[in-house]
Every structure is written in structure tokens, then in C-alpha cells.
């Protein structure tokens, strides 16, 4: 009579991204003006602060012990009224927290009471989901309900999010019970290695497979490889692939793709293959594999930035693989996949918020400096 148990997924011990934060980032991508976090003042503070740098206003209902006990309806109504009065927003998000969701707060009751004449996206989310993409999906569902997202884009996003979850399970932060954070290989050593390969005229596949705004910094690394090759007078063939399709995804994400493509062009870098949009990092792997197999066989080494673990190893076999991630917990899985050199751009994400130009990466800077020394 009882249903068959699902195979238990391993317990994962290391801390991972929060669904509440994922919902906040999603509302930012939807160009929502103000978000109210309904819960304790400190919840998601660090990310809320970062998002403010990116133009999203975040406020909190600051629930305290008495709010937990007596409910936070009045506080939410109050803040909602204040937000409308102070900021005159064109759209408002309300995001739940663990505390408010456990005590059964109904975000909708406050919205009904205030009855604002701009769309309100109510996101009933807490941080207790196994996959943080759940926060994105709930936020998108609410955006769909509020009429600020098309059904078509919603379906497209859902497919991408499921793939992103799969990628994390296969080779990412959800692949092991415990992953030790690591800084990876030193940038100095790997930069030296790349310079040597370029001097030997080795053929390079240079891939940018970035998640949204992180592309502003990862692209700098791909650009540096091209610039350094040119400065060194290298004979290396370099094929640049990038997920910079300007016609896919939410408006904000398309704008990032346009900005990065424009800057790359300005830096003299030609992108030979567009492998998808900036939100398609979990599904570009197949495209890349096929391109390598059909158009670019026999290359010597690959540089992969962004979400390197989404690129399958099949057709990278035999190449020297150099990858750059921004997750200290991504180092081990990448090494296990067979990457020869793995580096971490520490604190990359914060530096890519609130920008619309490519920003300098530590590894890009290291490469350029070593190349300069080399030429003296």
C-alpha cells in the first residue's frame, strides 16, 4: 500500500546558495523596482546589500520575536504602504523568509489590504529546499501570475533551471556529501603555462560559458588569452566560443550579452561561435561538444571560464584543460572531471554587480603582466 521510496539523495553538508536569495536575484533580472523581504532584519543581508549595488531596492519588515508570535501582517501592510509612498515603484516584489513562512504568513492578505495599482510579485519562499533553483521557479511563477512574464519565457526558463540543477548534481556543488573549499591552482603557474602553450603555437579553444552578469569578469579572461597571444606574436589558432546570444532571455540578461560582446569587440576579440544566451550556461555543453567534434578537432588546449563543469569532457579528451570558476567548492569536482588546471576568481560575483562593462579579472591581469615581462 505504501509507495516505493525514491532513492534517497545524499545528504549534503556544506552550505549552499539560498532559495530566498535566488528569488531576489530573479526579481532583479525581471527589473522589479523594490523588494520587501518579509522576515527578520538580518535575513539574506549580504545579498540584499549587493543587489542594491545592482539597482534593486531591498527593504525588510524586520520581524522580531513578537512578530513571530503575533504574525507580521500589520508590519507588511505598513512597509508596503511606505514603499509605495517613498519610492513610487513601477513594480514591487514581496519575498518570504523561513520565519514568515513557518508561521504561515499570507503575503497576499497584505497585498489585498493595500491594493497597490502596480504589479506585486508575491514569492512564498524559504531557504529549506534541496535545490536553490526552486526559489527562481517560485519567483518566476509569481511573475507569470502577476503578468510581467510571458508563458513562453517562463517555460523556457523552467527547462534551463532543471538543467542547471542537473549540472550541479553531476559535477557541481550538489555532487558530493561534503566538498572542501579550495583556491585551486595558483594563477601565476597557470598563466605561465598558457604563455608557454601560446609560444609553442598550440591550438586553443577559448570558451566563455558564464552565468548572466558573471560574464562581465569571466570574459576578461578569455579576452586576455587573445590579447596575450597577439602581443607575444603567437602562431596559435584561437577559436573563441561564448554564450553571448543577444536575442535570448530576459531583457536585462540580453543587455549583459550586448555589453560584453561590445567590449570584447573593442578589445579586438572576435567571437567565432555563439553557443547560447547568458542564461543558457547549463545547456551549452552539447553545442560545444558538437562544434569541437565537427569543426574544431585536434586542438591542443582549452580555456573554459564561467561554469566549466557544464561542458562535458567527451570531446575535450586529449586536450589540456584549463578552467576558471568562481566557486571554491567547484575546484575538486572539476579536477575529478579531468581538468588539468583549475583556478578560482575569488569574490567575482560582487564585482560584477552594478556594472555594464567588462571588469578586470585577477587571472586576466596575471596573464597580461607575465606576458609583458616575457617580452622585455
Amino acid at each position: 500500500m505504501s509507495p516505493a521510496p525514491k532513492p534517497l539523495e545524499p545528504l549534503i553538508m556544506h552550505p549552499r546558495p539560498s532559495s530566498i536569495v535566488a528569488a531576489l536575484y530573479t526579481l532583479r533580472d525581471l527589473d522589479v523596482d523594490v523588494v520587501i523581504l518579509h522576515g527578520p532584519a538580518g535575513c539574506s543581508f549580504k545579498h540584499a546589500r549587493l543587489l542594491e549595488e545592482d539597482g534593486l531596492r531591498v527593504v525588510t519588515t524586520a520581524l522580531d520575536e513578537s512578530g513571530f508570535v503575533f504574525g507580521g501582517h500589520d508590519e507588511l501592510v505598513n512597509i508596503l504602504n511606505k514603499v509605495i509612498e517613498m519610492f513610487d515603484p513601477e513594480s514591487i516584489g514581496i519575498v518570504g523568509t523561513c520565519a514568515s513562512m513557518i508561521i504561515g504568513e499570507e503575503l497576499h492578505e497584505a497585498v489585498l489590504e493595500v491594493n497597490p495599482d502596480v504589479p506585486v510579485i508575491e514569492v512564498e519562499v524559504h531557504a529549506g529546499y534541496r535545490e536553490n533553483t526552486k526559489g527562481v521557479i517560485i519567483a518566476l511563477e509569481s511573475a507569470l501570475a502577476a503578468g510581467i512574464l510571458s508563458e513562453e519565457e517562463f517555460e523556457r526558463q523552467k527547462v534551463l533551471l532543471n538543467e542547471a540543477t542537473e549540472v550541479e548534481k553531476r559535477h557541481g556543488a550538489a555532487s558530493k556529501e561534503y566538498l572542501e573549499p579550495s583556491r585551486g591552482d595558483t594563477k601565476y603557474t597557470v598563466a605561465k603555462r598558457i604563455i608557454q602553450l601560446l609560444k609553442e603555437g598550440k591550438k586553443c579553444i577559448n570558451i566563455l560559458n558564464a552565468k548572466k552578469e558573471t560574464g562581465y569578469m569571466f570574459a576578461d579572461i578569455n579576452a586576455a588569452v587573445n590579447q596575450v597571444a597577439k602581443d607575444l606574436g603567437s602562431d596559435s589558432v584561437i577559436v573563441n566560443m561564448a554564450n553571448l546570444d543577444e536575442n535570448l532571455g530576459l531583457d536585462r540578461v540580453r543587455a549583459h550579452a550586448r555589453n560584453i560582446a561590445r567590449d570584447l569587440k573593442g578589445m579586438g576579440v572576435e567571437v567565432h561561435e555563439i553557443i547560447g544566451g547568458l542564461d543558457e550556461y547549463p545547456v551549452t555543453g552539447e553545442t560545444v561538444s558538437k562544434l569541437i567534434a565537427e569543426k574544431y578537432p585536434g586542438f591542443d588546449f582549452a580555456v573554459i571560464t564561467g561554469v566549466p563543469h557544464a561542458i562535458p569532457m567527451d570531446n575535450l579528451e586529449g586536450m589540456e584543460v584549463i578552467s576558471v570558476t568562481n566557486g571554491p567548492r567547484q575546484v575538486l569536482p572539476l579536477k575529478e572531471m579531468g581538468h588539468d588546471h583549475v583556478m578560482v576568481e575569488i569574490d567575482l560575483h560582487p564585482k560584477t554587480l552594478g556594472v555594464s562593462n567588462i571588469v578586470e579579472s585577477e587571472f586576466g591581469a596575471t596573464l597580461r603582466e607575465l606576458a609583458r615581462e616575457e617580452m622585455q
Partner: protein
Amino acid sequence: MKQIAIYGKGGIGKSSTASNVAAACADEGYSVTIIGCDPKSDSSITLLGGHRIPTVMELMQQRVEITEKDVVFEGYKGIKCVEVGGPEPGIGCAGRGIIVAIKMLQKISTVMQDCDLIIYDVPGDIVCGGFAAPIRKGLVNDTYVLTSGEYMPLYAANNICKGFARLGNQLNGVICNSRNAENEEAIVSAFARELGSELLAFIPKDPLVQTCERAGFSVIEKEPDSGIAKVYRKLARTIIERDSACDPKPLTDARLRELTG
């Protein structure tokens, strides 16, 4: 479709009343669903010949893939029975359990839409946000208060009406489950009137309720010809037909004492 909930002091007889009303409606040919929102999961047991069914929360705790057939069971005359379940007394958060289970049910099943009468059986007082989830999520449109003519049950019923006022919920009527208090029918009748509502049924205290319960049945199923079965049938018809409600005006405590004094 009627979506109802019966509220009242703990132990006053909400679950017995709910299951007997459900059985009486099923006898009349209505399709009925009962959702037990009590962590002790005792709402549907007398509709299932005394059997316990797996609860939504216990399956979620086992992390199994849940489908409709795992949690929706047919009882007396095809009544669809669901038990939310929840933690043992003193641990965890039963209120959250109701929120989670209802969300899950909405996703995997149509029992909350495809029927003539759906009864949410909620325990005791509405002690936290979760216990009001069926109301607050708009799943309940008719609410009833069950009380005896004694001071404490009336006090609880009155308090619950204060909650309704707060939730913007209306009251469809008061039901008296007798505990053989003196002057009981008149007291509860006056209470109902002063709330702005009316007394819809006076259910006598009858040992049959407990004998049938012990055997695992409703009175309707096991003693269909008894007097109390008739009372439940009449109440069931009233609930199905009733379409008036009021914004209850809670009484003062002094007035409650006076009524029962």
C-alpha cells in the same frame, strides 16, 4: 461545491460531527471529501472501518514520491479521505505541516475541487497561522462553530469568532454538541443569536457516538436508524442548503458568564 470547516474547543466533538455529516451527505448521494488537518490524524478513521491511512506528512518525511493514490483513500460510500498528519506532541511545527500538505495536495490531486462537499477538520482552537491555512488560502467558504452550553466551550467558540473577524471570515452558523448542561439549548441559542448568527442543530449527548467510534464506524453507518443519526442527517441537509452567513459580533466575557451562570 461547499467547502466547510467546523471549529470549536478541543475535544468538543468536531471530528465526530464532521465524519457523521460526511457520511450523511454520502448517503444522500453527494460526493464528499474530508481533509483531516489534525496531527493526530483521527478525522477519517470512523469512515474507514477503524483503519488508519498513511498521512501526507509521514510520506513527505520518508521522502517518497507522493501521488494521489498514496494519500487519498475511499471510505464509507466513496467518501474521499485524506489525513495531513504531523509531528508527535511537543516537537516540530504542526501548523507548518498543514500549509505544506495542502500545497502538496493541490499539486497532486483534484480532491479539493471535484466534489459536492469538502470538510476540513481542524483541531481545537486556531492556535497558529498554519491551522488557519485552509481559510486563509481561500479553500474554505463556509465555517461553523461547534460548542456545548458550558462556559469554557462557549468561551473558546467566542474567541474563534474573534479570529474570524480578524481573518475576514464569516460565520455560517452555530452547532450545539450537548454535554448535558442545564438549559443548554437555550444558552447556545442565545449565544448564537447575540453573535448575529443562529443555532442550526442540537446534537444530544448519546453513548452510541462512542460505541460506534470504538468499533471504527460513524453512527450513520452503524446505527442508521438511531435518533442521533436523524439529527446528523438533518444537520447535513442544513449545511448543504445553507447560504446565509454573518460577520460574527463576539460577546463580552461578562456576558458569556452571565449566559452560563
